[in-house]
Structure formats: structure tokens, C-alpha cells
């Protein structure tokens, strides 16, 4: 992906840039809001990573300017202000996702890839197929090797989300936000237990594992065959 990183803190920019490049993306860095805005309008990017607090031109202003020109490039906001009301402000201004500093690099990469325009993953279909797993979105029916698997609605939603992002890392907080649809900071991360229940059901009887755990990051659903 072509990613534009607008971040004034040099060290954070280096760290984030290196992480994204390592994941195979091309990163352009802009050190302040003005340069970032010029870059964003001059070129087409697959994703813009934008720091919320920038000298000169504030991140939210840049975001609003980009959106005002009709540019719908996905924007991931970074901010030291981690509170939910700040998050809501960022999303209202046209952001697509919001990540509070400090963050773990894998979280940023996972979110960036989930947002990116040319991201792979399964297209919207009524039935998603991964190996011998079949997910019928309309009927909410899951089959593995033709065998029907009973899932709770929460388990179904976890599976749905993982499948939609197949091949990419999905972090625990992404699951929390999208499957539970609450933005909160869990005292105990119970997501692992939910995923392991789901795993037990769809990998019963020694079927090949489809959901792999990515150390220090989250989960990844295998793609296709």
C-alpha cells in the first residue's frame, strides 16, 4: 500500500515508518500539517495516517480539508488523547479509525492494513469460503466440511469479522470494537477466551486450524486453500 504518514514527532515517525515498510508498504512521511496536506492532495494514497496534534495546522483541520475536497482516502488518526470523546470527535471529522498513543506497532499495522483501500480479503459475498469452512452470512449458518456448526451470535460475529479480514492480522482491540461495538479498556482481556471457544467449535475433530494466533498482535484467519 502507498501510505502517507503525517506525524511531527521524528522518533514516532521513524518507528511507525519502519514497521509499515517491514510489512511491505511504501511510506511517505510529512513532518508537519502543511506539508502533509500538500502531499495528500498531490498524490493518491491508499491510506493516510494522521497525527491528531500537529504544529501549525491541527490534524482535525487537515482531515476536514481533505474530506471537503471529496477525497475519501481512508484516514487512521493517531492521538495522545485516548479518551472516547476525542475518538468520537476524530471519527466525526471524517476519520475511519482512531488509535491512541502509546500503541503497539503490530496494532497500528493491523489497523492500517484493515483500512487500506487495496487491502486483500474477501469481497462482500453472501457466502464466504475459507478452505472447507463455509459461512453463510444471510442464513447465519456455518459449515465445516459440510458439517453444520452451531455458533452463538457473538461467535458468529467474531468469525464473520475474522473472515472478512482473512490473511490479515486482527488485533484484540479491533475485535472488541467491531464485534462488541463498545470502546472500552477491558480490565481483563476476555477476547482470547471468546476466540478459543470459537476455535474449539470450528476446529473440532482435528480439522486444520484456520484461526492462527499472531504473537504480540492478535489473530489471523487463513486465506482460501
Amino acid at each position, binding site marked *: 500500500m502507498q501510505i502517507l504518514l503525517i506525524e511531527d514527532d521524528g522518533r514516532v515517525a521513524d518507528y511507525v515508518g519502519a514497521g509499515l515498510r517491514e510489512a511491505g508498504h511504501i511510506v511517505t512521511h510529512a513532518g508537519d500539517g502543511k506539508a502533509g496536506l500538500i502531499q495528500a492532495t498531490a498524490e493518491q494514497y491508499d491510506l493516510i495516517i494522521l497525527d491528531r496534534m500537529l504544529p501549525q495546522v491541527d490534524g482535525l483541520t487537515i482531515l476536514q480539508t481533505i474530506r471537503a475536497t471529496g477525497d475519501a482516502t481512508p484516514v487512521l488518526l493517531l492521538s495522545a488523547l485516548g479518551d472516547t470523546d476525542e475518538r468520537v470527535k476524530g471519527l466525526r471529522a471524517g476519520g475511519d479509525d482512531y488509535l491512541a498513543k502509546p500503541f*503497539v506497532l503490530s496494532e497500528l499495522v493491523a489497523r492500517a492494513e484493515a483500512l487500506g483501500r487495496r487491502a486483500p480479503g474477501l469481497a462482500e459475498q453472501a457466502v464466504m469460503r475459507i478452505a472447507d469452512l463455509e459461512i453463510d452470512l444471510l442464513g447465519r449458518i456455518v459449515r465445516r466440511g459440510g458439517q453444520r456448526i452451531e455458533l452463538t451470535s457473538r461467535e458468529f460475529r467474531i468469525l464473520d469479522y475474522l473472515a472478512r479480514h482473512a490473511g490479515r492480522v486482527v488485533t484484540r482491540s479491533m475485535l472488541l470494537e467491531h464485534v462488541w461495538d463498545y470502546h472500552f479498556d477491558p480490565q481483563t482481556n476476555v477476547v482470547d477466551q471468546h476466540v478459543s471457544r470459537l476455535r474449539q467449535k470450528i476446529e473440532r475433530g482435528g480439522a486444520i486450524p484456520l484461526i492462527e494466533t499472531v504473537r504480540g498482535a492478535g489473530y489471523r484467519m487463513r486465506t482460501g486453500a
Partner: protein
Amino acid sequence: MRLLASFSFRLALLYAALFTLSVSILLALFYWISIRRPIEQVEAGLIAESARFETLYREHGGQALVETLERRAELPAPRQAYHALIAPNGTVLATNLPSWPPEPSLRWLRIEADIYRDGEEYDHEALVLDRRLADGARLMVGRDVQDIDDLDEGIRVGALWLMPVMALLVIAGGGLMSRAIGRRIDAVGTTARRVMAGDLSERIPVRGSGDDIDRLGETLNAMLERIETSVESVRRVSDSVAHELRTPLTRLQAELNALNAASPERRTALIESAAEEAERLARMFDAVLRISRIEAQRHQPEMRRVDIAALLEDAADYHAPQAEERGLALDTRIQSGLEIVGDRDLLFQAVSNLLDNAIKFTPPGGRVALSAIRAEDGIALRIADTGPGIPAEHREKVVERFFRAPAAETVQGFGLGLSLVAAVAKLHGSTLRFSDAGPGLAVDWTLPARSG
């Protein structure tokens, strides 16, 4: 000028001005009632008499008027009548006045008409209307106004005496008032300076009289109380943060120091552990900041209609595997269709924290119950467990940041969970109540149906 800048001095000046003005108005009123009005009445009477005499003179001639005037002078009246009629040629036809100005003045005159009786001289003053009649004759009619003049004199002398007395009163009264107010204002100032110097326990002396300055003092004292508590809590929080930082930072430092000498596999483990430690620290700071922001109402809550029943079901669903893993039964009894106005994410966070605590503290085989019913004053939420509970003496303290009950030592956590719940509860205009569920802990939280 410093003196002019002093509020109490300006107040004293104002007092003096008001006092002087009031006395002057009173004097003027008194003067008008006892002097001006009687004089005006006499004048009106004289104008009427003079007009009547003029008619008489015109219709019946000088002799008729002379007779009338002389009769009038002899008639007993409260005010002695005076007159003078002078023919056009200068002949005095009739008079009982001792003298008058040679030229007709055609206006009001004051003529001395002293009376001698039994060898004593009595001052008498006549108010006289001096007119010229149609044929050139001069007619003066008057009445005795000595009594009014005496009163006038009295008032003037009185007023003259009153001046210095008034000045004295003004100075003394103003001074006393200014000092009394000044002293009480100074008391506030002294307290404020002591507080500024660092003694937050200082309070403004209050007399208990309930007057304005007393009430001001009470308000300021309440403010000081509030500031003292919050400064105290900030101090406690920052002490706790500093204290809580030591252990993870020490661990972090140790892990980083060990990196150099470590084997490759050990290195990976150390780096991972250090990163985890750093993340934990970041989360702790986040939590502290969040609580402070919510408490200080700097968090702008997203207040909207929240289906609290669905939210509670979601929270229970989220924690279900956690409870199961610990071998606990997680029971829910949630009335459907419960709605409140609130911040959805914060409410979920709070309920999740409460459930998390209940699950962590309840020994295996126990039970955690979450219930919500519509109550008279809102929605009554209750989370009860069969854990060790909180001893009564700690119930007040559990919502303090970093407070961890002795029983919590084996359970991981920062001691921030309940502080956040309390802050969220307060934001929604509600409070938490901890009680004994016999056995276990019960947390009661009544959410007003409409809050914020």
C-alpha cells in the same frame, strides 16, 4: 490614592453623602410645611381681600373702603389685619401701618408693625400686598406673620447648629462603619494570604450571625474545603502513581540491562516482557488520566439514549467465558426495555469493570449475579457475588485511586477499576453503594432514567 481605592472608605463617603442628602431633604420638607405653606396661604388670602376691596372702592368709593378697612382692623383675628389706603394725590385716607416705602412697589412687602402694649415692645411683622388701583390710589393690605417668621428664624438657627452635629455624626458613623466592614474584609484577606502561603487548612472566621459577609465567608470556606479535598486527592494520586511506577520501572530497567548478556532466546523473552511492562504502564496512565478527565467533567460525554438492558446483556456475554473459566455461575436478571440517557461506552466500561471485579474476587464454585429492574427513581442495577466482600471500613475507600483492599493482593490490577466506575456513576448523576450480600459483595447503582 490608596484611601480612595479602599472599598470601606468609599462606602463611608457614600454613607456621608447619603446621610447629608437625607437630612437636607428632611429639612427642606420641614421648612416647606411650616414656613412656605402658611405664607402661601396668607398670600392667597391677601390677594382675595385686595381684589374684594378694589371692587368695593370702584363701586362705592373711598369712604366705603376706609370704613371696611377700619372695621377689618378691629375685628379680632388670629392674624392682625393691616392696611393703608392712599389717595391719588398722596393723602393718606386710612392706615394702621407705621410706615411704608414711599414709592408703590406693586408687589409683596414686609413692613415692621411693632406693637406697644403696657410699655412693652412686641415685634410684629406684616406681610403686605402693595397695589395701585385704577384711579391711581394705592392700596396696601396685610396680615401679621410674626409667628411664621419666628419659626423661620428658629429653623435657620437650628439648621446652623445641626451642620456641625451632622458632620460629627457623619465622620464618626462613617468611620465606625468603614472600620467594621474593613476589619471583616481584612479577615477574609488574611485567610486568603495564609492559604496562598500554603496552609490550606486555614478558614475564614465566621460569626454565626448569618449576614452577607458571614455567608460569603461560609461560601469561601466551603470552596476552601473543596480545594483542600481535591488537592489532597491529587497529592494522594500523584504519590500513588509515583509509587506504582517504581516496581514496573525497576523491572523494565532490569530486563533492559539483562539484554546485553542474554542468549538469543532469552533476549526475545526479555524484550517481549519489557514491551508488556511498558504497555501495562501506558494503560495505567491512560486509566488515571481517564478517571481524572471524567471526574473533572472535562470528558464531554456522548449523552444519548442507551438501551441499558441490551448493554448489560452484552457485558454479561463478554464476561461469560471469564466466569466459566473460573468455575462461576454468571446469572443475569435484566428487565427488558430499560433505557437511560447516558454515555454508552463509559457505561459499558463501568459495568464491565464491576463484573470483572466480581468474577476475579469470587472463589470457584461461586456465583455472580447481575440484575437490573425499573425502580421508582430510575433503573436499579445490582451486581452481587459470593466472594469475600469488602469489610465495612474499606467501603468508602475502594473507589479511591490505587486503593486495593488487603484481599485484593493476590488479584492483579491497578486499583483503578472502581475509581473509574465511581467517576462514571457521578457523571451520570448517580452514586454507588457497596453492601454486604451475606456472603459476598453487592454493588447497587441506581441510574436516573434521565441524567446528564
